């Protein structure tokens, strides 16, 4: 077991419906992994399981050898697919909150990113636009020196220019010893940043491969190959 994230026979069921079925995977440190699949394929469920927001029905999920809990949460930096920050707080107050709970939170890094994104520390979250809130949440996530970054649709709701900037922020700011998992269906936008991809569909892993292998073996971009695999 050398992976930062290991899943063995992982299943998550809601009644009779299997959201994830017999997932086996291993993510190594230093890799940027794209978790790719159509809507409802099980991407968010897998990420929620990694964060302890859901409990597996069966199988095992380990982060640095530990089941999701207080220990793993201290080394996992998670960006949910929605804004979850308390609206009454200001950017400065939410940084205080992160600094209080996460020993790996780098306030200087966060302040620097706030300036680059043009966000004001004193501004209340409720006064921010949706885009500003998403940026703030990304800044907080990427300002941690975590071992595993789980980014659920980090570029979903932003314009193309900001997308590039966000991807650059992710790549420039993650701890090189860490792994980054980016869940998205906007493959063309993230492809350049990825080392590895996991294709997921109907709760099953269809493919786990290095990006270069896909390009060499199939002579296609990941985006083109994804379209071929998931053709309707």
């Amino acid at each position, binding site marked *: 077991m050398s992976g930062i994230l290991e899943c063995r026979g992982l299943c998550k069921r809601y009644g009779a419906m299997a959201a994830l079925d017999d997932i086996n995977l291993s993510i190594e440190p230093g890799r940027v992994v794209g978790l790719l699949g159509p809507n409802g394929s099980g991407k968010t469920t897998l990420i929620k399981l990694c964060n302890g927001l859901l*409990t597996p029905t069966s199988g095992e999920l380990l982060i640095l050898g530990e089941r999701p809990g207080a220990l793993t949460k201290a080394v996992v930096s998670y960006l949910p697919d929605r804004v979850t920050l308390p609206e009454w707080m200001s950017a400065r107050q939410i940084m205080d909150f992160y600094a209080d709970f996460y020993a790996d939170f780098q306030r200087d890094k966060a302040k620097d990113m706030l300036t680059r994104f043009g966000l004001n520390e004193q501004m209340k979250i409720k006064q921010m636009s949706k885009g500003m809130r998403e940026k703030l949440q990304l800044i907080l996530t990427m300002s941690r020196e975590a071992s595993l970054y789980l980014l659920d649709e980090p570029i979903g709701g932003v314009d193309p220019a900001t997308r590039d900037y966000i991807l650059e922020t992710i790549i420039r700011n993650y701890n090189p010893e860490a792994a980054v998992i980016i869940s998205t269906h906007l493959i063309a936008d993230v492809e350049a940043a990825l080392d590895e991809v996991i294709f997921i569909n109907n709760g099953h892993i269809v493919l786990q491969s290095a990006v270069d292998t896909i390009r060499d073996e199939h002579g296609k971009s990941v985006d083109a190959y994804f379209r071929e695999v998931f053709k309707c």
Partner: protein
Amino acid sequence: MLGKLIKHEFRATGRIMLPVLGVLLLTSVLAGLSIRLLDTGHIATMMRIVAGLFIAAFVIGVIAAIVISIVLMVSRFYRNLLCDEGYLMHTLPSNTHALVWSKLIVSLCWFIVTICVIWFSLFLMVLFLGGLQTVDFSGFAEGWEQAIAFLQEEGVGRGQLWLLLLEFLAAALLSMLASCLHFYAAMSLGHMAANRKVLFSVLAFIGISIAFRIILSGVAAGMIQSGAMETFFLGLEEAPGISEAFSMLHKIALGTLLLSLIQSAVLYVPTVFGLKKGLNLG
């Protein structure tokens, strides 16, 4: 970690509770002055209306402080742990027990502070109504000492009196804890449902209330049948002496304490289970 959660919970709730309690104190002063003004008799109708409004504002302030402290207890648990903020809270390097206890401790603290501030606001109102000289504090102390002397004559010691007060205080605290957990357990169970989580929370609340009433009625019926109730209220029909009445109050306090403790322990289990195993954030 619990300490940090409590600190942030106080920060989140204090921004609402402190202004509410501040306004309550202010209205108590205004109400006191208004009553004093009305007592003087010859004042303009407009002033009478304003004074009346200040008195009404104080009464509304007292009710509002109680209602807001309860609503805040419920809404903080719901919004912070079961809605979108739950993504942030449940991924902190903490455990579910600490999350629940931070909410419980802070809610209890606000209940106690609210009760104290209401008492203090009444005191303030009296103070501004006629000045401190109108309140005979020495009379209170004298009355207390006389009561203690009377109880000692009847065979009830000072220590016993303090113990009883402490028991009632603990019983009141545990009752508040059980009430909080009643809401928390209902919300926690209700949110395990895939849809209509609020509706299921309300149904769970009603279900829990009915279950506890049935169990309590069963226990009471059992006690009556076994004669335990008669033993409990021993001497009541025969006009109990002070000492017997004291002993009965002691039993009531301990009974309430035990009941609230059991109720809290029972409700804590589904609260934590729902958040730990059945968490299903939208």
